[in-house]
């Protein structure tokens, strides 16, 4: 700092300040510019056109989590694939290593993808991807009044 | 004189190894029979016989290898008690010479015969396997005494022999007399063993080793030179080796022999020991164990000074005469033989005392044979009478000679053996006892001849008197048992008989061995190979005949024998009514063995009791009371301490315990809470840590 150089943390700090400033600037200008005429319809929460009911902190079915996890897994895989693709066939590196670079990079990434694929296969074979429907067991209603009473009643109505 | 080479280890040769096997065989028999005694049953006897046979074979083999040929010695260091640089080693080893192998063969042979005899004699005993096991233990210990080269180990085996003797005398421990006799034998032996222990200590203090060879050699060197020094590992050690020391050592060693060989004044245990099984009496209390004392004396003979020899001859002669006299009035067949054994052992000790050592050892051997024969024959008589008793249902005392008579018609083989062995015992010409006993009497006469004092003639006179009495009581015994009319209880339809080869075979062997023809010239003891070989073992290779050329000694002995025999035949052979008639106090004296038991009771046992009860009273009234007082005061003190303990110490402990519990509860409390609060707590503690340590 003394020497006028910015340290690594300084850069992070600058990013933070920049981010806050950017958001604050947008909100502030909008606030300044926009007209402000609220009504009840406008103030309700938007939820796919439905009326919001109860609290948002409700329990979700765990089956969603499995799907979400698998989804995130492959998203992360993709995230890894992009930077890999940029250096995979780097000419300079290939020359430096005498061609080994490409081979190793390919093997590593294939291994990575295969492991993830195996995971998916495992889930599939074990049946974790099946959407298990709850099997509702209908409740039998046992009336304190015997059935004969009903039939008699019906007969009498006839 | 350096000690170290004298007790240096020696290699284990083929012969010494064989000797070790002979030693260990009976032990194996003891262990196997002892552990499997409930499973083996009748097999036990045959197993013991087999082991005995193998042992005898090996012993004979050793005898052939060693006799008059060479000696073998194996020695190893057992442990050392070195003090600083001074190496003091305890050695142990096996020593084989003429004397050793002779004893070995004798013990093996008699033991085997006794075991065979027992096959029949002990057949109906429920604990027969235990019996053979004890016999094995005895034989092992006896072999140990014979074979080892070291006085300490001889002492160990000596004690083991005492133990096995105790076990065998008390074999029928249900009988009060047997249990008491076993105890008595053990205690009287202990008195002698005390002497042995003292002797060991004195020997160690003088020679710093207990190896017999080394001691003999050192003593020889010490008596040759005036200024004798002993050194071990380069350091000289104190030693005196004066005649006084050696005399006391000799007397202490003799004490051991007095106990084991039943010499005056410790001889009273032997007659009582007859409560054991008769084969045991034959093996242990006639042939082998009681001879161990004589054997020990022969082994350490060079260490004895003139004074010790004098003591030996006096005690020996006294014992011989007393034993013979006590045998006169007995009516129990085994007791007669027991007193006879005491008398003959006295003869042997006397023989050693008058320097007729080879004759004494010769007598040891011949006595072992004919006395074992006599005992087994007596056993046969008792056994057949027991059989008769069981068959006819009558009650009789099978050992009481007063109730016997005319048995020669029923048990002829036993009769023959008894007569042959009896003739051996009285020293009839042509029988083994003649050669050996004549040697001893000759030695005694020669000794008295050389002595300056006229009183020395008492010794040979006592010996000849003993000889006379021996002839008298043995012939009396034969007449009483085998001749005359059959007693009234004998009914013809249940004949008294000796049954089975197991009884007959040992009798035949021992009877035949009583002839003198086996030992060289049948009428001249000087030409016996046995005496010569023994003499070689004791005095070295030059055979020095110690017996003077005087045939009149033999004439004297024969006269005594004839006189005794004639008196007996005169008195009892013609008319049996004499049995109950004798001079009253003499008979009582003889019957009660000079009232020795009563005397010991008055002199030793009663005072001990009085002393003990006095001490007990002192103990109860003075010591106990003060101890009680101390105890009471301690209890009072303890109560005070307990109060302090409860209130102060326990209070502290329970405070700590309470604290632990409280702390644990606290520690657990935030574990039991919800996860969120757990994390919260953890974070709080982290903050605390940061506040404390991060500055």
């Amino acid at each position, binding site marked *: 700092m003394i020497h006028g150089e910015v340290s690594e943390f300084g850069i992070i700090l600058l990013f933070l300040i920049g981010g806050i400033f950017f958001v604050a600037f947008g909100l502030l200008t909008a606030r300044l510019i926009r007209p402000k005429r609220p009504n009840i319809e406008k103030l309700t929460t938007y939820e796919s056109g439905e009326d919001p009911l109860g609290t948002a902190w409700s329990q979700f079915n765990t089956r969603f989590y499995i799907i979400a996890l698998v989804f995130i897994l492959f998203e992360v895989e993709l995230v890894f694939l992009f930077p890999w693709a940029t250096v995979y066939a780097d000419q300079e590196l290939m020359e430096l290593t005498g061609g080994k670079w490409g081979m190793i990079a390919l093997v590593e990434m294939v291994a990575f993808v295969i492991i993830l694929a195996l995971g998916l296969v495992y889930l599939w074979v074990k049946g974790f991807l099946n959407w298990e429907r709850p099997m509702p067991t209908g409740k039998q209603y046992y009336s304190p009044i015997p059935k004969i009473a009903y039939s008699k009643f019906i007969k009498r109505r006839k | 004189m350096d000690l170290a080479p004298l007790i240096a280890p020696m290699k284990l040769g083929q012969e010494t190894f064989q000797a070790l096997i002979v030693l260990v065989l009976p032990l194996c028999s003891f262990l196997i029979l002892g552990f499997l005694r409930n499973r083996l049953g009748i097999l036990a006897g045959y197993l013991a016989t087999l082991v005995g046979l193998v042992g005898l074979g090996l012993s004979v083999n050793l005898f052939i290898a060693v006799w008059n040929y060479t000696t073998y010695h194996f020695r190893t260091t057992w442990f050392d008690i070195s003090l600083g640089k001074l190496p003091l080693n305890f050695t142990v080893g096996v020593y084989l010479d003429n004397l050793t192998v002779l004893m070995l063969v004798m013990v093996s042979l008699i033991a085997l015969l006794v075991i065979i005899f027992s096959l029949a004699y002990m057949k109906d005993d429920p604990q027969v396997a235990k019996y053979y096991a004890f016999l094995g233990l005895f034989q092992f210990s006896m072999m140990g005494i014979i074979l080892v080269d070291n006085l300490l180990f001889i002492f160990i085996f000596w004690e083991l022999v005492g133990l096995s003797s105790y076990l065998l005398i008390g074999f029928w421990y249900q009988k009060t007399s047997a249990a008491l006799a076993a105890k008595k034998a053990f205690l009287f032996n202990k008195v002698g063993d005390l002497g042995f222990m003292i002797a060991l200590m004195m020997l160690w203090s003088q020679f710093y080793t207990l190896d017999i060879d080394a001691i003999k050699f050192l003593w020889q060197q010490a008596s040759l030179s005036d200024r004798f020094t002993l050194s071990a590992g380069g350091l000289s050690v104190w030693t005196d080796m004066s005649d006084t020391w050696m005399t006391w050592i000799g007397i202490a060693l003799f004490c051991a022999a007095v106990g084991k060989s039943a010499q005056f004044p410790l001889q009273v245990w032997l007659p009582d020991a007859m409560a054991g099984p008769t084969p045991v009496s034959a093996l242990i209390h006639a042939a082998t164990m009681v001879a161990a004392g004589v054997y020990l004396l022969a082994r350490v003979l060079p260490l004895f000074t003139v004074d010790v020899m004098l003591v030996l001859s006096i005690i020996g002669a006294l014992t011989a005469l007393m034993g013979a006299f006590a045998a006169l009035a007995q009516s129990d067949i085994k007791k007669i033989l027991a007193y006879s054994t005491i008398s003959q052992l006295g003869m042997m000790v006397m023989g050693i005392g008058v320097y007729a050592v080879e004759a004494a050892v010769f007598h040891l051997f011949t006595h072992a044979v004919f006395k074992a024969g006599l005992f087994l024959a007596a056993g046969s008589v008792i056994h057949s009478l027991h059989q008769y008793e069981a068959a006819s249902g009558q009650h009789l005392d099978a050992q009481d000679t007063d109730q016997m008579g005319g048995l020669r018609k029923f048990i002829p083989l036993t009769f023959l053996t008894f007569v042959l062995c009896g003739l051996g015992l009285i020293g009839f010409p042509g029988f083994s006892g003649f050669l050996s006993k004549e040697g001893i009497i000759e030695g005694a006469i020669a000794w008295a001849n050389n002595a300056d004092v006229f009183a020395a003639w008492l010794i040979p006179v006592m010996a000849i008197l003993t000889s006379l009495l021996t002839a008298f009581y043995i012939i009396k015994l034969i007449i009483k048992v085998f001749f005359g009319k059959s007693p009234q209880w004998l009914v013809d339809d249940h004949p008294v008989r000796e049954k089975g080869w197991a009884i007959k075979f040992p009798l035949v062997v021992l009877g035949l061995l009583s002839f003198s023809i086996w030992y060289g010239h049948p009428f001249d003891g000087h030409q016996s190979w046995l005496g010569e070989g023994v003499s070689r073992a004791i005095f070295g290779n030059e055979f020095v005949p110690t017996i003077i050329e005087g045939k009149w000694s033999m004439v004297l002995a024969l006269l005594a024998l004839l006189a005794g025999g004639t008196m007996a035949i005169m008195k009892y052979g013609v008319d049996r009514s004499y049995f109950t008639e004798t001079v009253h106090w003499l008979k009582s004296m003889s019957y009660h063995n000079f009232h020795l038991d009563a005397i010991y009771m008055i002199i030793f046992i009663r005072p001990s009791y009085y002393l003990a009860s006095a001490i007990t009273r002192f103990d109860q009234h003075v010591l106990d009371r003060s101890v009680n007082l101390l105890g009471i005061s301690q209890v009072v003190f303890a109560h005070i301490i307990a109060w302090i303990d409860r209130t102060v110490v326990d209070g502290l402990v329970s405070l700590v315990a309470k604290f632990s519990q409280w702390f644990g509860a606290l520690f657990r409390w935030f574990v039991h809470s919800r*996860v969120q609060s757990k994390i919260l707590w953890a974070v709080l503690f982290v903050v605390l*840590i940061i506040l404390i340590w991060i500055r």
Partner: protein
Amino acid sequence: MEIQSNILDPIFSLSQDLNYFRPELVLLICLFVCFFADLLIKKNKGLWLSSLAISGVLAYLWFSYTQFIGLEEEVYFMSDLMRLERSIVFVKLIFGVTTLGAIILAIKTKWIQIPLSHTGEYYFMLIALLLGSVLLPMANNWLVFFLLMEFLSITGYIITSFNRDKSSYEGAIKYLLFGAAASAIMLYGISLIYGMTGSMSIGDLANGMELDSGLLSLGLLFVLLGIFFKIALFPMHVWLPSAYQGAPSSGIVLLSVAPKVAALLFLWHLTSIIELGKIGFDLLPMFQWQQMIGILAIITMLGANAAALWQTNVKRLLAWSSVGHGGFMLAGVLTLSAFGQSTLLFYASVYALMNMGAFLLVLLIKKRTQNEEDINAFRGLASLHPFLGVLVTLLMLSFIGLPPTGGFMAKFLLFSAIWDTYQQSGEPIYIWVFAAGLFSSVISLFYYMKIPYLMYFKPLNSKDPKLVSLKSLDYLMMFLIVVALMVLFFKANWLMNILNSLNFAL
């Protein structure tokens, strides 16, 4: 291009580097074989999988052994991402044997309530846990370290949940949540360290010390907290009792030993680097980590042993005992001497053995009473199984640290190492640790002896209809373990000689 060529180093030395990974590669192969076997095999699945797992671990043990013989000094490889020294290879052997024990327990105890369809996963997870544990002490890079910590944690969560019942899930979720928090803290600590030193290499830690910054200390503290979470040291121990109560016994055999010892060994590496870094500076910029760890160890030992006094559930009791033993071993880390490390590893070996025995006992008792974990299930058991009674008594003596067992030698050596360090440094914290260790051993006497007490002095609950009687074959393994513990007492030299020859950095 200087940096780039540095990055490329592992490419050239790949085959050589892989040599150092032989045991781990064997485990990896075993892992995949188990994985496929689980998917493909339909008949006799349990038999196949267990034999595959056992043969894999045996092969791993063999390779570790050859590595142990071949390795002479500390080596760095994979561009200094990893390091290896003989003490690490030694714990590989311990872990391998423990895993073997865990697998055998899992096979032997068929009454364990894991559905057959999950058995493959179970062995898979055990081996994965082993893999993570053997790799963790080898880490020489913060990122690798973090990855392995996560690897260990995740396998741990899964193993904890394997009993598939309420308490199992409860334990697992507590473990997961707490672990996630710990990971977050640790990751933050690592980022702070990176910020202060500008390097991901652990060895470069000393570079940051000259700055004399509280931030580096804070970062280190956060990392330490992550490690404490693995060792279950106060204040990061709270997840442990519930997790152990829920987890399958055979799993805890490994779970309570391997990650704990691995983290301790890593901590050893870290603290020795801190000490090395300190040497260059006159003032002591780093916080007094000995003092902090010492006090935490004291609290852990006393607290855990006191808390165990209250337990009536055997598994919870053993969980608290495990926390306590973690505290003891941490005291070993404090010594930071060659002898101290020997004693620490000795303690770890003995602890692994004892733990195996204890959870075998839990399984036996669960078999006998059909899933009863209460301590009262031991009542009067000695009258039915006197031999088991003797074994259990010996085992508990070992836990307390009384002769004639390896537990005594372990505590004795550890305490003497602490005492030595106290003599040399004269810092009072060591004497306090020493005293607390002794005191908590005394406390532990009460709850460990409760089991033999119940077995011998209380009448049998014979009315319980569910009781299944045990066969002597059931506790053969227990017998072997107890014999091994006795051997470690009577021939402690055998192990100590090996440990003393480990050629330590310090």
